[in-house]
């Protein structure tokens, strides 16, 4: 018999009683021996396995007869076959500080890339895979849900007014490829107040309160154009895709923190989603300005609509803008004014104003006031 290549001391557990026996384990090439506690047993080394290394914890050697030996971690133990071979390389990585730092850097870069490019691109791609018909029926479901949950009541606008607004609407969407899917719904909403929403599939809802707050037809056109922007750019579907992806990624990243803290886990998802939401608003604004100009309406109508209300909120809004689902109102107004100045010059409006409110499509958030 050759010299032992490895000798370790440990506690032996036979699997019948939870009591450890002090035992010496030695490997002599092909053969291994357990000695101590009144027994000597010999095994073929190739039949023994050892649990993978983890941190600085002790490891268990498994014997074919069901016994196990607990011994302190030891490089020599790697001579035995691993009980879970795929974990070996992971354990190797886990032991290196450099690797851990590299991983943190990689995680940060990866998350930023996914956030800035990956998810929006994935959402764009997903949207192309969903047919307009499917999206439209989703929108109808959503409208049905909102009606059912008493977010909306039947409109109290008279027929002439409805016809007038519908006419503006059909003029605005006349050039669109998805024109046949567009549908304008009038609703009274005590809970939302002046608001307009773009549901999936070109279903646009405008509340009576919004109609009465808008001072002119141009302002109604501005509201509608903004919502058409959301519909045309398929923001509802993109938002649904992005928010579920964000939720999934956030769940993975914060999985460790979730059980030891309260509500920290939701924070990154919240921040990410509101950022996307602000981007959608800005995109819809830009779309609306273009559409309005095409129809000879100055974007100033949009600005005037937003203006009065913003005087109430401006200061606070800046303070919490990173948490807001909408861009800072002043910036939106400024942008509208800039654009209107470009072509037509200022087009002051005497209208009453109201912010164009939210048009989220995740089921909890529909049209909630901020």
């Amino acid at each position, binding site marked *: 018999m050759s010299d032992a290549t490895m000798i370790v001391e440990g506690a032996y557990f036979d699997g019948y009683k939870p009591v450890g026996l002090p035992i010496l384990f030695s490997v002599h090439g092909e053969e291994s021996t357990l000695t101590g506690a009144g027994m000597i047993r010999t095994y073929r080394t190739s039949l023994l396995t050892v649990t993978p290394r983890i941190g600085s914890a002790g490891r268990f050697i498994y014997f074919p007869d069901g016994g196990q030996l607990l011994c302190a971690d030891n490089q020599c133990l790697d001579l035995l076959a691993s009980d879970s071979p795929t974990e070996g390389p992971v354990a190797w990585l886990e032991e290196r500080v450099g690797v851990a730092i590299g991983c943190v850097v990689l*995680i940060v870069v990866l998350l930023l890339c996914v956030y800035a490019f990956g998810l929006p691109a994935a959402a764009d791609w997903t949207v192309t895979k969903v047919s307009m018909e499917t999206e439209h029926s989703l929108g109808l*479901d959503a409208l049905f849900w909102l009606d*059912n949950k008493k977010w909306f009541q039947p409109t109290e606008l008279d027929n002439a007014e409805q016809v007038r607004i519908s006419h503006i609407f059909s003029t605005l969407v006349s050039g669109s490829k998805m024109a046949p899917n567009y549908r304008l719904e009038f609703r009274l909403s005590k809970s939302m107040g002046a608001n307009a929403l773009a549901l999936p599939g070109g279903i646009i809802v405008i509340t009576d309160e919004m109609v009465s707050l808008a001072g002119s037809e141009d302002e109604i056109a501005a509201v509608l154009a903004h919502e058409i922007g959301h519909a045309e750019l398929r923001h509802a579907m993109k938002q*649904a895709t992005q928010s579920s992806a964000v939720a999934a*990624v956030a769940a993975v990243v914060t999985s*460790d923190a979730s059980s030891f*803290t309260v509500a920290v886990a939701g924070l990154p998802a919240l921040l990410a989603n509101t950022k996307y939401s602000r981007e959608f608003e800005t995109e819809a604004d830009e779309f609306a300005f273009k559409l309005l100009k095409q129809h000879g309406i100055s974007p100033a109508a949009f600005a005037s609509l937003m203006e009065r209300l913003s005087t109430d909120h401006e200061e606070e*809004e800046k303070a919490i803008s990173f948490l807001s689902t909408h861009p800072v109102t002043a910036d939106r107004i400024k942008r509208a004014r800039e654009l209107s100045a470009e072509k037509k010059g200022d087009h002051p409006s005497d209208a009453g104003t109201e912010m164009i409110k939210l048009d989220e499509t995740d089921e909890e958030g529909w049209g909630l006031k901020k």
Partner: protein
Amino acid sequence: MKLKPEIEAEITVLPNDVNPCKSALRDDIIGYYECPIVLPNGTWDCRMVFPNASGRVELGETATALIRFLIPNEALQGLRLDNTFQLLREDGIIATGKVTGFIVPPIKHVLKLEFIGSSREYFRIWAVNLCLTLVTLGIFSAWAKVRKRRYFYSHTLLDGTPFQYLGQPFPILRGRIIGATLFAVYYMSSHFLTSLLPYVLALGAVLAPWVIIRSTAFKARYSAFRNMTFRFEGNYWDTVKVASAWGVVPAIIIGMMFKWWNITWLQAALFAIAGLLFPWWISRFKSFLVGHTAFGGKNGQLFTTGEEFFGIYFLAGIFFVLIISVAGLSLSIFHISKHSAYYVALFSIPAYVGNVFSYAYIQAHTSNLFWNKATLGPLRFCSTLRGLTMAKYYLTNALAIIASAGLLTPWAVMRTMKYRADNLCVLVTGELTDFSGSNMTLVSAAGAEVGEFFDMDLSL
């Protein structure tokens, strides 16, 4: 005249300080423990001891006295003492003190439970596994789970021996794929193909008890101590009986299937009933799980009652409602408009803190209740978590994680686990050899292909 109490805060009465009662004067007394106190000289008379027992002071030559507390029979099921006492000297001087502790029946050994994980080590494991999970689009998460579990188990020592996690990545991966598929089906049917939802819910209701059994069994089978695995053996119908909560859960599911939710009062009534029954349900459900869990041929037992859980939830709920109303009231006193952004901030911070405190209270006290009322063969447990301390941990964890953009997560995990382990001890009333295995390691290794399903964490 009042003396400053010599026993000021808390004495943890170690269970091995408990002596069996030699002269059993009363049937409801099983023993006593003695607790040394320091008193100024004189003859002291014990005037009032806590309600469950009586006591007296035996003054020796020295200024140290032993106060003897008798232990009532309920201590068999675990009894926490939290009592003040008052001692009277001849000249009218009164000393008061407080004794807090936990008592169990005659204890032969105390097995030390310790968590020896280190933040540095766990940081590396966390970073590597998170990175690989993200890079592999989640596939690696099965390995990550195994690595983390392995780390937690093998750094939790009971009586010097680490626990063993025997789960393997591939069965977990398969379980996760099935779980993700089922979740996707549910998501699609609840968001897009709503006409399918009733069928999906019905299927889910039929599968749920099975999932509960399988995941609990998986957890038990792949947890081992000293080469002996835990086992869970519950059958489907028993699980249905317990999980259905006297028919409330089926009623809710049927309600979701047939859109009863449009009837507001019915929805409110069902949820009110479910909420009220919850403490009794959770007590029954946990007793069911513990009762069907075995180690070394001994089944566990849990002696909790619904009233005990109700008390915990009720207090936490009252506290939360109080905080919210105080916050709301003070805001309305200062005329802060509901539409103002400050309103949100000023309201949500107390609401968050109130939430943390009640959550921590519930966590600490349900955990204490569970462990202190559980037995496993010759083992008793003693859990001494405190709601305030837990809340402190939660709040500082949250702050540290936010401030470090998540990098302190491993640190938060380690310190919380350490706190929990430090506050749980295992007491042996008989001998460890009362446990007797049948070499179940081999059985479980052969049964390893029985995967886990939802990987639900029904942690107790």
